[in-house]
Protein backbone atom coordinates (compact mmCIF):
# COMPACT_ATOMS: atom_id res chain seq x y z
CA UNK A 1 0.00 0.00 0.00
CA UNK A 2 1.66 3.18 -1.13
CA UNK A 3 1.02 6.47 0.54
CA UNK A 4 0.09 8.83 -2.26
CA UNK A 5 0.53 12.51 -1.62
CA UNK A 6 -2.47 14.82 -1.97
CA UNK A 7 -3.62 14.19 -5.48
CA UNK A 8 -4.18 17.83 -6.25
CA UNK A 9 -3.35 21.11 -4.65
CA UNK A 10 -7.06 21.81 -4.31
CA UNK A 11 -7.26 19.06 -1.71
CA UNK A 12 -5.46 21.37 0.70
CA UNK A 13 -6.42 19.71 3.96
CA UNK A 14 -9.76 18.27 2.88
CA UNK A 15 -10.84 15.68 5.37
CA UNK A 16 -12.58 13.43 2.85
CA UNK A 17 -12.63 13.56 -0.91
CA UNK A 18 -14.58 11.22 -3.17
CA UNK A 19 -13.09 11.51 -6.64
CA UNK A 20 -15.24 10.21 -9.46
CA UNK A 21 -16.42 7.21 -7.45
CA UNK A 22 -18.50 4.75 -9.42
CA UNK A 23 -20.01 1.53 -8.14
CA UNK A 24 -21.59 -0.89 -10.56
CA UNK A 25 -23.56 -4.05 -9.80
CA UNK A 26 -23.66 -5.73 -13.17
CA UNK A 27 -25.46 -3.17 -15.26
CA UNK A 28 -26.85 -1.13 -12.36
CA UNK A 29 -25.02 2.04 -11.44
CA UNK A 30 -25.35 2.43 -7.69
CA UNK A 31 -22.91 5.32 -7.81
CA UNK A 32 -22.21 7.34 -10.93
CA UNK A 33 -18.93 9.28 -10.80
CA UNK A 34 -19.64 10.77 -7.41
CA UNK A 35 -17.68 13.87 -6.47
CA UNK A 36 -17.86 14.90 -2.84
CA UNK A 37 -15.51 16.93 -0.68
CA UNK A 38 -15.85 17.23 3.10
CA UNK A 39 -14.00 19.83 5.16
CA UNK A 40 -12.36 18.92 8.46
CA UNK A 41 -14.79 19.07 11.38
CA UNK A 42 -17.78 19.38 9.08
CA UNK A 43 -20.97 17.33 9.39
CA UNK A 44 -22.23 16.52 5.91
CA UNK A 45 -25.57 14.78 5.53
CA UNK A 46 -26.29 12.64 2.50
CA UNK A 47 -29.98 12.72 1.81
CA UNK A 48 -32.03 10.83 -0.70
CA UNK A 49 -34.61 8.12 -1.36
CA UNK A 50 -33.75 4.40 -1.05
CA UNK A 51 -31.48 3.26 -3.81
CA UNK A 52 -29.96 6.67 -4.44
CA UNK A 53 -26.50 5.45 -3.46
CA UNK A 54 -26.02 7.32 -0.19
CA UNK A 55 -25.39 4.20 1.88
CA UNK A 56 -23.14 2.77 -0.84
CA UNK A 57 -21.01 5.90 -0.72
CA UNK A 58 -20.73 5.64 3.05
CA UNK A 59 -19.77 1.96 2.95
CA UNK A 60 -17.15 2.63 0.29
CA UNK A 61 -15.65 5.26 2.56
CA UNK A 62 -15.73 2.78 5.45
CA UNK A 63 -14.09 0.09 3.36
CA UNK A 64 -17.03 -2.31 3.68
CA UNK A 65 -17.67 -1.98 -0.04
CA UNK A 66 -15.27 -1.41 -2.93
CA UNK A 67 -15.66 1.17 -5.66
CA UNK A 68 -15.56 -0.06 -9.24
CA UNK A 69 -13.59 3.03 -10.21
CA UNK A 70 -12.45 6.30 -8.70
CA UNK A 71 -10.41 7.24 -5.65
CA UNK A 72 -11.18 8.04 -2.06
CA UNK A 73 -8.83 10.36 -0.23
CA UNK A 74 -8.79 10.96 3.49
CA UNK A 75 -6.60 13.79 4.71
CA UNK A 76 -4.99 13.86 1.31
CA UNK A 77 -4.06 10.15 1.44
CA UNK A 78 -5.39 7.67 -1.07
CA UNK A 79 -7.16 5.02 0.96
CA UNK A 80 -9.03 3.33 -1.86
CA UNK A 81 -7.08 0.09 -1.38
CA UNK A 82 -6.68 0.22 2.37
CA UNK A 83 -8.55 -2.63 4.14
CA UNK A 84 -11.53 -1.66 6.23
CA UNK A 85 -9.95 -2.49 9.56
CA UNK A 86 -7.04 -0.13 8.95
CA UNK A 87 -8.98 2.98 8.02
CA UNK A 88 -9.33 4.51 11.47
CA UNK A 89 -13.00 5.40 11.11
CA UNK A 90 -15.87 5.06 13.52
CA UNK A 91 -19.20 3.80 12.25
CA UNK A 92 -22.66 3.75 13.74
CA UNK A 93 -25.04 1.30 12.05
CA UNK A 94 -28.79 1.50 11.80
CA UNK A 95 -29.37 -1.25 14.33
CA UNK A 96 -28.10 -4.41 16.00
CA UNK A 97 -24.46 -3.55 15.95
CA UNK A 98 -23.68 -3.79 19.68
CA UNK A 99 -21.96 -7.04 20.65
CA UNK A 100 -24.54 -8.87 22.74
CA UNK A 101 -22.09 -10.86 24.84
CA UNK A 102 -20.22 -7.79 26.11
CA UNK A 103 -21.32 -5.18 28.61
CA UNK A 104 -21.92 -1.64 27.45
CA UNK A 105 -18.53 -0.55 28.80
CA UNK A 106 -16.75 -3.48 27.11
CA UNK A 107 -18.51 -2.63 23.87
CA UNK A 108 -17.27 0.94 24.05
CA UNK A 109 -13.76 -0.18 24.91
CA UNK A 110 -13.66 -2.81 22.15
CA UNK A 111 -11.67 -0.76 19.64
CA UNK A 112 -9.20 0.24 22.32
CA UNK A 113 -8.76 -3.38 23.35
CA UNK A 114 -7.85 -4.30 19.80
CA UNK A 115 -5.24 -1.55 19.79
CA UNK A 116 -3.64 -2.93 22.93
CA UNK A 117 -4.68 -0.29 25.41
CA UNK A 118 -4.15 -1.20 29.04
CA UNK A 119 -7.25 -2.21 30.91
CA UNK A 120 -7.19 0.87 33.17
CA UNK A 121 -6.85 3.20 30.21
CA UNK A 122 -9.71 1.39 28.48
CA UNK A 123 -12.00 1.61 31.44
CA UNK A 124 -11.31 5.30 31.91
CA UNK A 125 -11.89 6.09 28.28
CA UNK A 126 -15.09 4.02 28.18
CA UNK A 127 -16.40 5.84 31.25
CA UNK A 128 -15.52 9.16 29.62
CA UNK A 129 -17.33 8.33 26.38
CA UNK A 130 -20.41 7.02 28.18
CA UNK A 131 -20.59 10.27 30.15
CA UNK A 132 -20.35 12.15 26.87
CA UNK A 133 -23.42 10.38 25.49
CA UNK A 134 -25.30 10.62 28.77
CA UNK A 135 -25.07 6.97 29.83
CA UNK A 136 -22.39 7.23 32.49
CA UNK A 137 -24.17 4.84 34.88
CA UNK A 138 -25.02 2.12 32.37
CA UNK A 139 -21.57 0.65 31.86
CA UNK A 140 -22.25 -2.74 33.40
CA UNK A 141 -25.48 -3.45 31.55
CA UNK A 142 -25.96 -5.49 28.41
CA UNK A 143 -27.24 -4.35 25.04
CA UNK A 144 -30.52 -6.20 25.19
CA UNK A 145 -31.36 -4.44 28.46
CA UNK A 146 -31.26 -1.02 26.82
CA UNK A 147 -33.82 0.85 24.74
CA UNK A 148 -33.19 1.50 21.05
CA UNK A 149 -32.17 5.08 21.67
CA UNK A 150 -29.77 4.05 24.42
CA UNK A 151 -28.23 1.38 22.21
CA UNK A 152 -27.50 3.93 19.53
CA UNK A 153 -25.87 6.20 22.09
CA UNK A 154 -23.62 3.35 23.10
CA UNK A 155 -22.84 2.70 19.43
CA UNK A 156 -21.87 6.34 19.10
CA UNK A 157 -19.68 6.20 22.18
CA UNK A 158 -18.01 3.07 20.85
CA UNK A 159 -17.32 4.71 17.49
CA UNK A 160 -15.85 7.82 19.07
CA UNK A 161 -13.79 6.01 21.68
CA UNK A 162 -11.01 5.31 19.22
CA UNK A 163 -10.79 8.97 18.16
CA UNK A 164 -11.51 8.22 14.51
CA UNK A 165 -10.50 10.45 11.64
CA UNK A 166 -14.02 10.31 10.26
CA UNK A 167 -17.31 9.44 11.95
CA UNK A 168 -19.78 7.57 9.76
CA UNK A 169 -23.45 7.38 10.63
CA UNK A 170 -25.60 5.02 8.53
CA UNK A 171 -29.23 6.03 9.15
CA UNK A 172 -28.62 5.83 12.90
CA UNK A 173 -32.07 7.08 13.83
CA UNK A 174 -34.24 5.34 11.27
CA UNK A 175 -35.10 2.41 13.53
CA UNK A 176 -36.17 4.56 16.48
CA UNK A 177 -39.46 6.06 17.63
CA UNK A 178 -40.27 9.55 16.36
CA UNK A 179 -39.81 11.33 19.66
CA UNK A 180 -36.53 9.56 20.43
CA UNK A 181 -35.35 10.37 16.96
CA UNK A 182 -35.75 14.11 17.42
CA UNK A 183 -34.10 14.02 20.84
CA UNK A 184 -31.19 11.91 19.74
CA UNK A 185 -30.40 13.83 16.58
CA UNK A 186 -29.88 17.00 18.57
CA UNK A 187 -27.68 15.01 20.96
CA UNK A 188 -25.61 13.66 18.09
CA UNK A 189 -25.10 17.14 16.69
CA UNK A 190 -24.12 18.50 20.10
CA UNK A 191 -21.60 15.71 20.63
CA UNK A 192 -20.19 16.05 17.15
CA UNK A 193 -19.63 19.77 17.67
CA UNK A 194 -18.02 19.12 21.03
CA UNK A 195 -15.65 16.47 19.75
CA UNK A 196 -15.11 18.12 16.38
CA UNK A 197 -14.85 14.94 14.30
CA UNK A 198 -15.49 15.12 10.54
CA UNK A 199 -18.79 13.35 10.06
CA UNK A 200 -20.76 11.81 7.21
CA UNK A 201 -24.42 11.26 8.11
CA UNK A 202 -26.68 9.26 5.82
CA UNK A 203 -30.45 9.56 6.09
CA UNK A 204 -33.65 9.46 4.07
CA UNK A 205 -35.39 11.90 6.45
CA UNK A 206 -35.04 15.41 5.09
CA UNK A 207 -36.05 17.09 8.33
CA UNK A 208 -33.30 15.19 10.10
CA UNK A 209 -30.70 16.18 7.52
CA UNK A 210 -31.63 19.84 7.61
CA UNK A 211 -31.60 19.88 11.40
CA UNK A 212 -28.12 18.49 12.05
CA UNK A 213 -25.88 19.20 9.08
CA UNK A 214 -23.44 21.90 8.12
CA UNK A 215 -24.11 20.98 4.52
CA UNK A 216 -26.65 18.63 3.00
CA UNK A 217 -26.02 16.66 -0.15
CA UNK A 218 -29.11 15.45 -1.99
CA UNK A 219 -28.49 12.29 -4.00
CA UNK A 220 -30.52 10.74 -6.73
CA UNK A 221 -29.75 7.63 -8.80
CA UNK A 222 -26.08 7.56 -7.83
CA UNK A 223 -25.40 11.22 -8.42
CA UNK A 224 -25.13 14.23 -6.15
CA UNK A 225 -27.84 16.67 -7.26
CA UNK A 226 -26.91 19.51 -4.95
CA UNK A 227 -24.78 20.06 -1.88
CA UNK A 228 -25.33 23.21 0.15
CA UNK A 229 -26.04 24.52 3.65
CA UNK A 230 -29.61 23.59 4.74
CA UNK A 231 -31.10 27.05 4.25
CA UNK A 232 -29.70 27.39 0.76
CA UNK A 233 -30.97 23.93 -0.15
CA UNK A 234 -34.40 24.83 1.07
CA UNK A 235 -34.67 28.29 -0.43
CA UNK A 236 -32.72 27.77 -3.63
CA UNK A 237 -33.12 24.16 -4.81
CA UNK A 238 -30.96 23.54 -7.86
CA UNK A 239 -33.32 21.06 -9.52
CA UNK A 240 -36.93 19.92 -9.43
CA UNK A 241 -35.86 16.74 -7.66
CA UNK A 242 -34.25 18.67 -4.82
CA UNK A 243 -37.21 21.01 -4.61
CA UNK A 244 -39.56 18.04 -4.37
CA UNK A 245 -37.50 16.07 -1.93
CA UNK A 246 -36.70 18.81 0.54
CA UNK A 247 -39.70 20.30 2.28
CA UNK A 248 -43.21 20.55 1.04
CA UNK A 249 -44.27 22.56 -1.94
CA UNK A 250 -47.22 23.55 -4.05
CA UNK A 251 -47.18 23.25 -7.81
CA UNK A 252 -48.88 26.30 -9.31
CA UNK A 253 -48.99 27.40 -12.92
CA UNK A 254 -46.89 30.46 -13.61
CA UNK A 255 -45.57 32.57 -16.45
CA UNK A 256 -41.95 33.68 -16.52
CA UNK A 257 -40.33 36.58 -18.28
CA UNK A 258 -36.95 38.15 -17.60
CA UNK A 259 -36.41 36.49 -14.24
CA UNK A 260 -39.80 37.28 -12.82
CA UNK A 261 -42.59 34.74 -12.44
CA UNK A 262 -46.22 35.68 -12.27
CA UNK A 263 -47.99 33.32 -9.92
CA UNK A 264 -51.66 33.80 -9.12
CA UNK A 265 -51.33 37.45 -9.92
CA UNK A 266 -48.28 38.02 -7.74
CA UNK A 267 -44.85 38.89 -9.11
CA UNK A 268 -42.20 36.65 -7.65
CA UNK A 269 -38.49 36.40 -8.50
CA UNK A 270 -37.55 33.20 -10.30
CA UNK A 271 -34.41 31.55 -8.88
CA UNK A 272 -31.53 30.28 -10.92
CA UNK A 273 -32.37 27.02 -12.67
CA UNK A 274 -35.85 28.09 -13.56
CA UNK A 275 -37.03 28.31 -17.16
CA UNK A 276 -36.24 31.72 -18.59
CA UNK A 277 -39.51 32.52 -20.32
CA UNK A 278 -42.92 31.16 -21.08
CA UNK A 279 -45.35 29.22 -18.94
CA UNK A 280 -44.37 26.57 -16.46
CA UNK A 281 -44.96 25.28 -12.96
CA UNK A 282 -43.80 27.26 -9.94
CA UNK A 283 -42.85 25.38 -6.76
CA UNK A 284 -44.21 27.50 -3.96
CA UNK A 285 -43.55 26.69 -0.31
CA UNK A 286 -46.65 26.45 1.88
CA UNK A 287 -45.35 29.10 4.25
CA UNK A 288 -45.17 31.50 1.31
CA UNK A 289 -48.89 31.11 0.76
CA UNK A 290 -51.23 32.97 3.03
CA UNK A 291 -55.01 33.02 3.15
CA UNK A 292 -57.36 35.50 4.74
CA UNK A 293 -61.13 35.33 4.98
CA UNK A 294 -62.71 37.56 2.33
CA UNK A 295 -66.16 37.66 0.80
CA UNK A 296 -64.65 38.70 -2.51
CA UNK A 297 -61.78 36.20 -2.41
CA UNK A 298 -61.05 34.07 -5.46
CA UNK A 299 -60.69 30.80 -3.59
CA UNK A 300 -62.49 28.63 -1.09
CA UNK A 301 -61.30 26.44 1.77
CA UNK A 302 -61.31 22.68 1.25
CA UNK A 303 -60.03 21.56 4.65
CA UNK A 304 -58.11 22.82 7.64
CA UNK A 305 -55.53 20.66 9.43
CA UNK A 306 -54.47 21.72 12.94
CA UNK A 307 -50.88 20.76 13.74
CA UNK A 308 -50.39 22.56 17.03
CA UNK A 309 -48.40 25.75 16.49
CA UNK A 310 -49.15 25.80 12.78
CA UNK A 311 -52.14 24.90 10.68
CA UNK A 312 -52.29 23.75 7.09
CA UNK A 313 -55.18 25.06 5.06
CA UNK A 314 -56.05 23.43 1.73
CA UNK A 315 -57.76 25.77 -0.69
CA UNK A 316 -58.94 25.61 -4.26
CA UNK A 317 -58.94 28.70 -6.45
CA UNK A 318 -61.83 29.49 -8.78
CA UNK A 319 -59.41 28.83 -11.63
CA UNK A 320 -58.96 25.29 -10.39
CA UNK A 321 -55.49 25.38 -8.70
CA UNK A 322 -55.23 23.51 -5.44
CA UNK A 323 -52.86 24.97 -2.85
CA UNK A 324 -51.80 24.30 0.69
CA UNK A 325 -51.10 27.27 2.90
CA UNK A 326 -49.17 27.00 6.15
CA UNK A 327 -49.89 29.66 8.76
CA UNK A 328 -49.67 30.20 12.50
CA UNK A 329 -52.74 28.59 14.01
CA UNK A 330 -53.86 31.89 15.49
CA UNK A 331 -54.46 33.15 11.96
CA UNK A 332 -56.33 30.03 10.90
CA UNK A 333 -58.80 30.16 13.72
CA UNK A 334 -62.34 30.30 12.43
CA UNK A 335 -61.55 29.04 8.95
CA UNK A 336 -63.89 26.29 7.87
CA UNK A 337 -64.50 24.34 4.67
CA UNK A 338 -66.48 26.30 2.04
CA UNK A 339 -65.29 29.69 3.42
CA UNK A 340 -64.28 32.21 0.78
CA UNK A 341 -60.67 33.36 1.17
CA UNK A 342 -58.16 35.60 -0.50
CA UNK A 343 -54.91 33.85 -1.46
CA UNK A 344 -51.65 35.83 -1.34
CA UNK A 345 -48.25 34.64 -2.53
CA UNK A 346 -45.27 36.13 -0.68
CA UNK A 347 -42.43 37.51 -2.84
CA UNK A 348 -40.01 34.70 -1.80
CA UNK A 349 -38.02 33.50 -4.85
CA UNK A 350 -39.41 30.32 -6.41
CA UNK A 351 -38.16 27.65 -8.78
CA UNK A 352 -40.17 27.48 -11.98
CA UNK A 353 -39.85 24.30 -14.02
CA UNK A 354 -41.21 23.36 -17.36
CA UNK A 355 -44.58 21.75 -17.00
Amino acid at each position, binding site marked *: MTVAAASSSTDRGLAVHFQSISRLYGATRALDELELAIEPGELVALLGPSGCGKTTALRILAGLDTATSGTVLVGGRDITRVPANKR*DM*GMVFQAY*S*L*FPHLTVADNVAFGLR*LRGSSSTARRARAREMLELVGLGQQGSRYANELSGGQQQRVALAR*ALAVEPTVL*LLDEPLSALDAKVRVQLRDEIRRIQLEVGTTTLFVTHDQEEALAVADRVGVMNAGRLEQIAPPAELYERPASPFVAEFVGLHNKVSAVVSSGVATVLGASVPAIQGSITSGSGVAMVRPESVSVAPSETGAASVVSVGFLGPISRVHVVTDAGDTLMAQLPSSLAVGLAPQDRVEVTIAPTPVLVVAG
Partner: protein
Amino acid sequence: MIGGRRRFAAAAPALGLVPFLAFIGVFLVVPTLTVVATSFQGEDGGFTLANIRALGSEAALTALWHSLILAGSTALIGAVLGAILAWLVVSAGPTSVLRRLTLAVSGVLAQFGGVTLAFAFIATLGFSGVLTEALRSWPGVDIFGSGWLFGLPGLIVVYCYFQIPLMVLVFVPALDGLRVQWREAAVNLGASTWQYWRHVALPLLTPAFLGSMLLLFANAFAAYATAAVLVSQGNPITPLFIRAALTSEILLGQANLGFALALEMIVVVAVVMGLYALLLRRTSRWMT
Protein backbone atom coordinates in the same frame (compact mmCIF):
# COMPACT_ATOMS: atom_id res chain seq x y z
CA MET B 1 -74.51 -21.38 42.47
CA ILE B 2 -73.69 -18.63 40.02
CA GLY B 3 -70.03 -18.59 40.94
CA GLY B 4 -69.74 -22.31 40.25
CA ARG B 5 -71.40 -22.05 36.87
CA ARG B 6 -69.20 -19.17 35.86
CA ARG B 7 -66.13 -21.05 36.88
CA PHE B 8 -67.28 -24.03 34.85
CA ALA B 9 -67.89 -21.87 31.82
CA ALA B 10 -64.46 -20.38 32.16
CA ALA B 11 -62.89 -23.83 32.43
CA ALA B 12 -64.94 -25.37 29.62
CA PRO B 13 -62.52 -24.57 26.79
CA ALA B 14 -59.88 -26.51 28.67
CA LEU B 15 -62.00 -29.62 28.17
CA GLY B 16 -61.04 -29.49 24.53
CA LEU B 17 -57.57 -30.57 25.59
CA VAL B 18 -58.77 -33.72 27.30
CA PRO B 19 -58.32 -36.10 24.36
CA PHE B 20 -54.74 -35.02 23.90
CA LEU B 21 -53.90 -35.06 27.59
CA ALA B 22 -55.52 -38.43 28.05
CA PHE B 23 -53.56 -39.87 25.17
CA ILE B 24 -50.26 -38.53 26.45
CA GLY B 25 -51.16 -39.67 29.91
CA VAL B 26 -51.72 -43.25 28.89
CA PHE B 27 -48.96 -43.69 26.35
CA LEU B 28 -46.19 -41.50 27.73
CA VAL B 29 -46.70 -40.55 31.34
CA VAL B 30 -47.91 -43.93 32.57
CA PRO B 31 -45.01 -45.87 31.03
CA THR B 32 -42.50 -43.41 32.44
CA LEU B 33 -44.03 -43.58 35.91
CA THR B 34 -44.16 -47.35 35.60
CA VAL B 35 -40.44 -47.39 34.95
CA VAL B 36 -39.73 -45.22 37.96
CA ALA B 37 -42.05 -47.15 40.24
CA THR B 38 -41.02 -50.62 39.14
CA SER B 39 -37.35 -49.79 39.68
CA PHE B 40 -38.10 -49.85 43.35
CA GLN B 41 -40.21 -52.97 43.18
CA GLY B 42 -38.89 -56.32 44.19
CA GLU B 43 -39.85 -59.70 42.79
CA ASP B 44 -42.57 -59.95 45.39
CA GLY B 45 -43.96 -56.59 44.49
CA GLY B 46 -42.77 -54.82 47.61
CA PHE B 47 -40.52 -51.83 47.92
CA THR B 48 -36.84 -52.57 47.56
CA LEU B 49 -33.62 -50.85 46.69
CA ALA B 50 -32.03 -54.02 45.37
CA ASN B 51 -32.50 -53.02 41.74
CA ILE B 52 -30.91 -49.67 42.37
CA ARG B 53 -28.04 -51.30 44.14
CA ALA B 54 -27.58 -53.63 41.22
CA LEU B 55 -26.82 -50.60 39.12
CA GLY B 56 -23.55 -50.50 40.96
CA SER B 57 -22.61 -53.98 39.88
CA GLU B 58 -19.58 -54.32 37.70
CA ALA B 59 -21.54 -55.37 34.65
CA ALA B 60 -23.94 -52.47 34.91
CA LEU B 61 -21.24 -49.94 35.62
CA THR B 62 -19.10 -51.13 32.74
CA ALA B 63 -22.07 -50.87 30.40
CA LEU B 64 -22.78 -47.37 31.66
CA TRP B 65 -19.16 -46.36 31.29
CA HIS B 66 -19.08 -47.62 27.72
CA SER B 67 -22.32 -45.84 26.94
CA LEU B 68 -20.89 -42.61 28.26
CA ILE B 69 -17.73 -43.05 26.21
CA LEU B 70 -19.75 -43.84 23.10
CA ALA B 71 -22.01 -40.85 23.57
CA GLY B 72 -19.19 -38.53 24.59
CA SER B 73 -16.77 -39.40 21.82
CA THR B 74 -19.35 -39.34 19.05
CA ALA B 75 -20.74 -36.08 20.44
CA LEU B 76 -17.30 -34.50 20.38
CA ILE B 77 -16.33 -35.79 16.94
CA GLY B 78 -19.76 -35.04 15.55
CA ALA B 79 -19.75 -31.54 17.05
CA VAL B 80 -16.34 -30.56 15.72
CA LEU B 81 -16.71 -32.05 12.25
CA GLY B 82 -20.34 -30.97 12.04
CA ALA B 83 -19.43 -27.40 13.00
CA ILE B 84 -16.79 -27.31 10.29
CA LEU B 85 -19.23 -28.61 7.69
CA ALA B 86 -21.88 -26.16 8.92
CA TRP B 87 -19.44 -23.30 8.54
CA LEU B 88 -18.48 -24.42 5.03
CA VAL B 89 -22.16 -24.46 4.13
CA VAL B 90 -23.10 -21.12 5.69
CA SER B 91 -20.14 -19.29 4.21
CA ALA B 92 -21.28 -20.35 0.76
CA GLY B 93 -24.14 -17.89 0.97
CA PRO B 94 -27.78 -18.03 2.10
CA THR B 95 -29.20 -19.19 -1.20
CA SER B 96 -26.40 -21.35 -2.52
CA VAL B 97 -27.09 -24.78 -3.95
CA LEU B 98 -24.51 -26.27 -1.61
CA ARG B 99 -26.40 -25.03 1.40
CA ARG B 100 -29.76 -26.34 0.29
CA LEU B 101 -28.37 -29.67 -0.78
CA THR B 102 -26.39 -30.18 2.40
CA LEU B 103 -29.30 -29.24 4.64
CA ALA B 104 -31.67 -31.55 2.76
CA VAL B 105 -29.19 -34.45 2.89
CA SER B 106 -28.45 -33.74 6.57
CA GLY B 107 -32.15 -33.85 7.29
CA VAL B 108 -32.32 -37.32 5.85
CA LEU B 109 -29.10 -38.67 7.34
CA ALA B 110 -29.83 -37.32 10.82
CA GLN B 111 -32.98 -39.45 10.88
CA PHE B 112 -31.04 -42.28 9.33
CA GLY B 113 -30.77 -44.28 12.45
CA GLY B 114 -31.46 -47.75 13.37
CA VAL B 115 -31.47 -50.71 11.19
CA THR B 116 -30.71 -49.03 7.89
CA LEU B 117 -27.52 -47.48 9.22
CA ALA B 118 -26.32 -50.78 10.65
CA PHE B 119 -26.69 -52.49 7.31
CA ALA B 120 -25.09 -49.61 5.47
CA PHE B 121 -21.97 -50.18 7.49
CA ILE B 122 -22.17 -53.95 7.24
CA ALA B 123 -22.26 -53.45 3.51
CA THR B 124 -19.21 -51.22 3.71
CA LEU B 125 -17.00 -52.54 6.48
CA GLY B 126 -18.49 -55.95 7.20
CA PHE B 127 -16.66 -59.18 6.51
CA SER B 128 -17.64 -59.08 2.85
CA GLY B 129 -18.24 -55.37 2.78
CA VAL B 130 -17.35 -53.29 -0.23
CA LEU B 131 -14.52 -51.37 1.40
CA THR B 132 -13.23 -54.44 3.21
CA GLU B 133 -12.96 -56.40 -0.01
CA ALA B 134 -11.45 -53.49 -1.89
CA LEU B 135 -8.75 -53.01 0.70
CA ARG B 136 -8.21 -56.75 0.93
CA SER B 137 -7.54 -57.16 -2.74
CA TRP B 138 -5.46 -54.11 -3.50
CA PRO B 139 -3.18 -53.08 -0.61
CA GLY B 140 -3.86 -56.39 1.02
CA VAL B 141 -4.97 -54.77 4.24
CA ASP B 142 -7.51 -56.59 6.35
CA ILE B 143 -9.65 -53.87 7.75
CA PHE B 144 -12.20 -56.25 9.19
CA GLY B 145 -9.84 -57.76 11.70
CA SER B 146 -11.65 -59.67 14.40
CA GLY B 147 -14.87 -57.88 13.81
CA TRP B 148 -14.31 -54.58 15.63
CA LEU B 149 -17.32 -53.25 13.75
CA PHE B 150 -19.56 -55.28 16.00
CA GLY B 151 -18.22 -53.87 19.23
CA LEU B 152 -17.77 -50.49 20.87
CA PRO B 153 -15.19 -49.12 18.38
CA GLY B 154 -17.51 -50.01 15.53
CA LEU B 155 -20.40 -48.25 17.20
CA ILE B 156 -18.34 -45.11 17.57
CA VAL B 157 -17.52 -45.02 13.86
CA VAL B 158 -21.10 -45.79 12.87
CA TYR B 159 -22.75 -43.29 15.19
CA CYS B 160 -20.72 -40.44 13.76
CA TYR B 161 -22.58 -41.01 10.55
CA PHE B 162 -25.74 -39.48 11.95
CA GLN B 163 -24.13 -37.25 14.57
CA ILE B 164 -22.39 -35.06 12.02
CA PRO B 165 -25.56 -34.28 10.00
CA LEU B 166 -27.47 -33.70 13.22
CA MET B 167 -24.83 -31.18 14.25
CA VAL B 168 -25.14 -29.44 10.90
CA LEU B 169 -28.90 -29.14 11.31
CA VAL B 170 -28.66 -27.80 14.85
CA PHE B 171 -25.65 -25.52 14.41
CA VAL B 172 -26.42 -23.82 11.09
CA PRO B 173 -29.13 -21.66 12.73
CA ALA B 174 -26.55 -20.53 15.27
CA LEU B 175 -24.15 -19.52 12.51
CA ASP B 176 -27.00 -17.77 10.73
CA GLY B 177 -27.63 -15.87 13.92
CA LEU B 178 -24.26 -14.16 13.65
CA ARG B 179 -25.40 -10.77 12.42
CA VAL B 180 -23.38 -9.23 9.65
CA GLN B 181 -23.42 -5.93 11.52
CA TRP B 182 -21.28 -7.49 14.27
CA ARG B 183 -18.62 -8.43 11.82
CA GLU B 184 -18.72 -5.05 10.12
CA ALA B 185 -18.63 -3.20 13.43
CA ALA B 186 -15.66 -5.26 14.59
CA VAL B 187 -13.82 -4.67 11.33
CA ASN B 188 -14.60 -0.98 11.48
CA LEU B 189 -13.15 -0.80 14.99
CA GLY B 190 -9.95 -2.33 13.68
CA ALA B 191 -10.35 -6.08 14.05
CA SER B 192 -8.51 -8.47 11.77
CA THR B 193 -10.33 -11.69 10.77
CA TRP B 194 -8.61 -13.58 13.57
CA GLN B 195 -9.49 -10.89 16.12
CA TYR B 196 -13.10 -10.92 15.00
CA TRP B 197 -13.32 -14.65 15.57
CA ARG B 198 -11.48 -14.54 18.85
CA HIS B 199 -13.34 -11.62 20.46
CA VAL B 200 -16.77 -11.74 18.84
CA ALA B 201 -17.74 -14.82 16.85
CA LEU B 202 -16.30 -17.60 19.02
CA PRO B 203 -17.61 -16.23 22.35
CA LEU B 204 -21.02 -15.84 20.76
CA LEU B 205 -21.02 -19.30 19.23
CA THR B 206 -19.65 -21.20 22.23
CA PRO B 207 -22.95 -21.66 24.10
CA ALA B 208 -24.64 -22.85 20.91
CA PHE B 209 -21.74 -25.20 20.19
CA LEU B 210 -21.75 -26.70 23.67
CA GLY B 211 -25.53 -26.98 23.64
CA SER B 212 -25.48 -28.75 20.32
CA MET B 213 -22.82 -31.11 21.61
CA LEU B 214 -25.01 -31.95 24.58
CA LEU B 215 -27.88 -32.67 22.21
CA LEU B 216 -25.65 -35.03 20.28
CA PHE B 217 -24.63 -36.69 23.52
CA ALA B 218 -28.22 -37.35 24.57
CA ASN B 219 -29.01 -38.56 21.09
CA ALA B 220 -26.20 -41.12 21.06
CA PHE B 221 -26.77 -42.21 24.64
CA ALA B 222 -30.40 -43.07 24.00
CA ALA B 223 -29.87 -44.75 20.63
CA TYR B 224 -30.76 -48.41 20.47
CA ALA B 225 -31.55 -49.85 17.06
CA THR B 226 -28.16 -49.64 15.37
CA ALA B 227 -26.39 -51.16 18.33
CA ALA B 228 -29.07 -53.83 18.62
CA VAL B 229 -28.45 -54.95 15.06
CA LEU B 230 -24.68 -54.75 15.08
CA VAL B 231 -24.11 -56.33 18.45
CA SER B 232 -25.72 -59.72 18.88
CA GLN B 233 -23.57 -60.99 21.72
CA GLY B 234 -22.74 -59.34 24.97
CA ASN B 235 -23.97 -56.10 26.43
CA PRO B 236 -21.27 -53.51 25.96
CA ILE B 237 -23.62 -50.57 26.45
CA THR B 238 -26.54 -49.81 28.74
CA PRO B 239 -29.32 -49.97 26.12
CA LEU B 240 -28.21 -53.45 25.14
CA PHE B 241 -28.01 -54.40 28.79
CA ILE B 242 -31.65 -53.43 29.05
CA ARG B 243 -32.42 -55.61 26.06
CA ALA B 244 -30.79 -58.51 27.78
CA ALA B 245 -32.66 -57.84 31.01
CA LEU B 246 -35.97 -57.68 29.15
CA THR B 247 -35.41 -60.83 27.18
CA SER B 248 -34.24 -62.54 30.34
CA GLU B 249 -31.00 -63.65 28.83
CA ILE B 250 -29.28 -63.07 32.10
CA LEU B 251 -30.63 -64.11 35.43
CA LEU B 252 -29.26 -61.91 38.14
CA GLY B 253 -32.05 -62.51 40.58
CA GLN B 254 -33.21 -58.97 40.15
CA ALA B 255 -36.31 -59.22 38.00
CA ASN B 256 -36.72 -55.54 37.59
CA LEU B 257 -33.13 -54.67 36.81
CA GLY B 258 -34.18 -53.57 33.34
CA PHE B 259 -36.44 -50.98 34.91
CA ALA B 260 -33.70 -49.69 37.13
CA LEU B 261 -31.40 -49.40 34.12
CA ALA B 262 -34.10 -47.50 32.28
CA LEU B 263 -34.41 -45.17 35.27
CA GLU B 264 -30.67 -44.67 35.09
CA MET B 265 -31.02 -43.66 31.46
CA ILE B 266 -33.77 -41.18 32.30
CA VAL B 267 -31.55 -39.54 34.87
CA VAL B 268 -28.56 -39.20 32.56
CA VAL B 269 -30.59 -37.82 29.66
CA ALA B 270 -32.55 -35.48 31.93
CA VAL B 271 -29.35 -34.00 33.34
CA VAL B 272 -27.88 -33.51 29.87
CA MET B 273 -31.06 -31.97 28.49
CA GLY B 274 -31.33 -29.70 31.51
CA LEU B 275 -27.87 -28.31 30.81
CA TYR B 276 -28.84 -28.02 27.16
CA ALA B 277 -31.91 -25.94 28.05
CA LEU B 278 -29.77 -23.57 30.11
CA LEU B 279 -27.32 -23.05 27.26
CA LEU B 280 -30.19 -22.60 24.82
CA ARG B 281 -31.51 -19.75 26.90
CA ARG B 282 -28.13 -18.04 26.83
CA THR B 283 -27.90 -18.37 23.06
CA SER B 284 -31.41 -17.12 22.34
CA ARG B 285 -30.82 -14.09 24.51
CA TRP B 286 -27.92 -13.09 22.32
CA MET B 287 -28.91 -14.25 18.91
CA THR B 288 -32.50 -13.15 18.40
